[in-house]
């Protein structure tokens, strides 16, 4: 039913735009805006979901976490702000679930001031309710945010305590058991940065992963993912690009650990409406070109 309504509304609208274009009228940009909004809203109201299969670049991150021996040390850095959160937060949550499920030790930090707030949301909404046995200071800890962008990495690559004398809650690092054998980032088994701006995955590669020779994985907004491709697979073991990457990771996680099936997997859910919106944009490009060639045939100027 929903599918039919959406198809009629969206298809009809597109045909109307095509008709206008063939008649040689240019479509007002506001119509384009209304259309995009309506498409997305319809797709949300009548939920559509597609299956996802992990591509190699995502699978390699999953396999890395999957195959590290239990108790490995993994840093997860929240390098994003609320604006980017819908796209990359699902990645961070999927990482938390996978890492703790595998009984690794998880060190949270953030290079973005706004990241620490989102980090505490993750801790309260995902980590604490789903992993009640995880002990603070033993299984995970939160270093919080430090100003200084990649300068922070410059320091912690040789010495954590110099930059973080204490964690986000004011405990000295020496009082946390999981910091006993950690001096710097070099002692980690895997670094994961989730972000989409600067500092982000790229800065982590350049200032931490590369100089420290520590395995590095990333999650990034789709916009910056192509820039990170050149680093894969040499300087980056894998990368989750955009909601699609997040959805692939979620699908892989559910496949391997069915107990997460009933948990919220926002990226998977978001893929349906996105695909719809995509199709509409493709249609816009086609219609735009029809309009262009029509006007050219008539000898009109653009």
């Amino acid at each position, binding site marked *: 039913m929903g599918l039919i309504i959406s198809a009629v509304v969206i298809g009809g609208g597109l045909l109307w735009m095509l008709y206008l274009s063939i008649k040689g009228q240019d479509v007002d940009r506001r119509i384009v805006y209304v259309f995009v909004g309506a498409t997305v809203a319809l797709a*949300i109201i009548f*939920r559509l979901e597609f299956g996802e299969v992990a591509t190699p670049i995502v699978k390699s991150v999953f396999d890395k976490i999957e195959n590290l021996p239990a108790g490995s040390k993994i840093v997860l850095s929240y390098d994003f702000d609320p604006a980017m959160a819908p796209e990359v937060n699902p990645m961070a949550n999927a990482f938390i679930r996978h890492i703790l499920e595998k009984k690794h030790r998880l060190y949270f930090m953030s290079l973005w001031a706004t990241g620490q707030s989102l980090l505490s949301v993750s801790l309260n909404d995902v980590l604490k309710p789903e992993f009640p046995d995880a002990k603070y200071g033993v299984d995970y800890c939160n270093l919080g945010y*430090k100003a200084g962008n990649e300068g922070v990495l410059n320091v912690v690559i040789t010495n954590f305590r110099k930059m973080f004398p204490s964690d986000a809650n004011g405990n000295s690092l020496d009082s946390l058991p999981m910091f006993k054998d950690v001096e710097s980032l070099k002692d980690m088994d895997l670094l994961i940065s989730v972000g989409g701006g600067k500092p982000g995955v790229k800065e982590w590669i350049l200032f931490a992963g590369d100089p420290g020779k520590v395995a590095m994985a990333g999650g990034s907004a*789709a*916009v910056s993912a192509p820039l990170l491709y050149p680093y894969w697979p*040499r300087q980056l073991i894998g990368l989750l690009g955009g909601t699609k990457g997040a959805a692939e990771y979620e699908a892989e996680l559910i496949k391997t650990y069915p107990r997460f099936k009933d948990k919220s997997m926002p990226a998977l859910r978001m893929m349906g409406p996105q695909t719809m919106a995509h199709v509409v944009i493709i249609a816009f490009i086609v219609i735009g070109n029809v309009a262009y060639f029509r006007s050219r045939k008539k000898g009109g100027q653009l």
Partner: protein
Amino acid sequence: MDGAVISTWLAALLTLGIMSFVYKDNLYYKICEAIFIGISAGYWFITYFWDSLYRIAWIGVVHEGRYVLLGGVVLGAMMLMRLFGKIGWIARWPLAFIVGATAGLKMMVYFTTNAMAQIHGTVDDTMVAFGGGDLYDLIGRLVILIGTVTGLIYFYFSKEHKGLFGGVAKVGTWFLMITFGASFGYTVMSRMSLLLGRIEFLLTDWLKLVK
């Protein structure tokens, strides 16, 4: 009404206010914009204040005895001389410090990580360009090689883009266009997801139209 309801309404009203801008500039948007500017400027000032001034400068100098940081404080104080007309020119000193540090640091970072690493990567990717692998690999490597070199030729400033050189530079622009088109197409999905997040908030959390 409890806090959750108020906060949802507040967020929804602000969301709609900003969205109204795509239709046209209006009073509602102007209010949201004014709130946004005031709140966010305050937010950042407070964040810098506690994280840099207090945690780095004050704790660092007074409690940890890292007197080297005093240099930063002195330079920062010089910045404020801008407020006093006559000796305002002193503010150029910290500015000069920052520009010098940026030039020095960024020059080396860009040189090693952008230039050297990318050249290394290109040689690596196109290695054994004419041996090994199947046709697919071979074409891929050749394309990377040709694209990188012709792209660089496009950026070459000291020769007119004419004749053969101009032709090669033209091929370079084609590669740049593919790059731009590909990045654009690739990005569309993530842009959509942002809008999705907001509309979902409006429909689910606020209007409760969708569960």
